[in-house]
């Protein structure tokens, strides 16, 4: 096991202690399905997949400082693409591949076009313009999905069959876990690349980045395309998990979900999105179980909004940030005491 932690530690450039913790976490996650019921298994699969959606948002909000209010279109759009193709062509692995390619290509193109419009301005009005334009793009896609009832079934939702190998919930858990690990490594690599650093520089101080000679608009476009594709990949996995898509997936609310995952966990950290997703999803599930006590517990969105506003106001760095703060003050006290 020491050798294993060593490998993890070396390849992920983390401290041995952290590597050991990561390894333990992995073991726990591997064991969970064997000792728990179907609800827990599905909940965790869901968390794994939505965490990717959250992380893709963190690339934008946390690392580049972009607010994209139409981000759900990549996620929901991919779910729809997979669903429609499975229904129209057939639930086979070939079709899944086709869906993945289609979703990737389309997200990249849409992200590119969206960025061309959204990243024109800078400063105060630039932020507003970006939020509005992305919101508008999201609404266009949602509206299109509602209009094309023949394909999407509109608000009623589209149910579809999926390839056989994904039908087993138990195995799906592991697929989702592997998917999460792979995507985390990929995105982590991205934010640690020279490009990723430039994105953070843009978030910190766009004007200065321009005066170092960086074409900041191009970098924002890269960020949006990468985030769009990551979120599309999560959308496809989501299709395989739920076998269902409705226009709810495309609403601003859905985008806000991703936003909530990242800010609860901590923006600009990538892992924060995973923690945030876990926290939010588990909170949602527990609240819904309290439904029997009072009707208000079924109004998830009220709690959602409340958590969200409180986090923005009082815990802008999220759980990870709060943890670091505690850690820092604890060490200070140790030093002095």
């Amino acid at each position, binding site marked *: 096991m020491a050798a294993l932690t060593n490998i993890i530690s070396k390849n992920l450039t983390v401290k041995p202690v952290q590597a050991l913790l990561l390894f333990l976490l992995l073991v726990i996650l591997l064991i969970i399905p064997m000792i728990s019921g179907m609800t827990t298994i599905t909940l965790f699969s869901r968390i794994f997949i939505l965490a990717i959606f959250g992380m893709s948002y963190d690339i934008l909000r946390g690392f580049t400082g972009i607010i994209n209010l139409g981000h759900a279109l990549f996620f929901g759009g991919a779910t729809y693409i997979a669903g429609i193709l499975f229904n129209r062509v057939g639930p086979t692995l070939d079709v899944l591949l086709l869906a993945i390619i289609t979703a990737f290509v389309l997200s990249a193109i849409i992200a590119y076009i969206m960025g061309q419009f959204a990243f024109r301005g800078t400063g105060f009005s630039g932020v507003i313009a970006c939020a509005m334009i992305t919101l508008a793009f999201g609404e266009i896609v949602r509206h299109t999905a509602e209009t094309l009832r023949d394909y999407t079934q509109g608000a009623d939702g589209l149910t579809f069959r999926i390839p056989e190998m994904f039908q087993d919930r138990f195995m799906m858990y592991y697929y989702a876990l592997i998917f999460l690990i792979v995507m985390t490594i990929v995105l982590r690599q991205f934010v*640690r690349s020279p490009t990723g650093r430039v994105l953070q*520089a843009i978030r910190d*101080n766009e004007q200065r980045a321009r005066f170092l000679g960086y074409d900041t608009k191009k970098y924002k476009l*890269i960020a949006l395309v990468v985030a769009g594709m990551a979120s599309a990949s999560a959308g496809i996995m989501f299709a395989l998990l739920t076998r269902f898509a409705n226009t709810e997936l495309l609403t601003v609310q859905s985008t806000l979900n991703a936003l909530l995952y990242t800010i609860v966990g901590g923006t600009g950290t990538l892992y924060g999105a995973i923690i945030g997703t876990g926290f939010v999803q588990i909170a949602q599930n527990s609240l819904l179980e309290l439904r029997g006590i009072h009707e208000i517990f079924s109004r998830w969105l009220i709690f959602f909004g409340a958590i969200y506003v409180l986090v923005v106001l009082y815990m802008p760095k999220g759980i990870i940030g709060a943890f670091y703060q505690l850690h820092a003050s604890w060490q200070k006290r140790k030093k002095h005491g």
Partner: protein
Amino acid sequence: MSETLIETKNLTINFGGLKAVNKVSISIHKGLFTTIIGPNGAGKTTLFNLISGLLQPTEGTVIFKGTDITRLSPMQRVAMGIGRSFQLTNVFPTLTVHENIRLALQAKNRTGYRIFTSYKRFRSLEEAATKLLEDVLLHDRGNFLAGSLNHGEQRKLELAMVLALKPDVLLLDEPTAGMALEEVPTMLELLEKTKKEQDNTILLIEHKMDLVTKLSDTVIVLVNGSVLTRGTAAEVSEDPEVLKAYLGGGILNETTA
């Protein structure tokens, strides 16, 4: 005289009727240290903004190495070799000091579009960044977040970032602004070193006259958006017109009379 690096012709900008910079024609010669002085509101920083591309002039042209760059974006100008620092400190606060410098180096080396390679793979950048940190006396601050540095240290970091771009001309906007008095001599030393070691062309805005006198080859005096005079520091400070601009003419009539 040596070759002209930057030339402005009739540079003018209007801010709602106010001519912040009015028909300024100056030429900056290669290898010289030129300082711009002038009372508050004389248009010094605005002139920098016009040369570096943050603002577009209402009239006139900016020529750099013989090319008209008046309509180019700031990014393009940086690529051509114009590096600038800002009057207000302007670093990337949530990145480490080391990363701040590396970003500047990386911009010069054009490795910004390597999407999936870890930045740690670029050894030469790492080393160059460490070297630069030593140059500006920040070597023990490399792993600090830039935002946690004190003000004087941030100014030094900013100087290092401009140096990292290895520009043909450095525009430095009041590198000592807001510094504690004790820190100013260090900055002076750094500027002197920059001037000596690397045969740089430097354009500086500064208020502290002792600095100006020690550093400059040429001084340009800007008043109310126009060039009043230019010459060596000694010439300029003896110029009655300049005194008048600074003192409002009060004593001058009597001293000359």
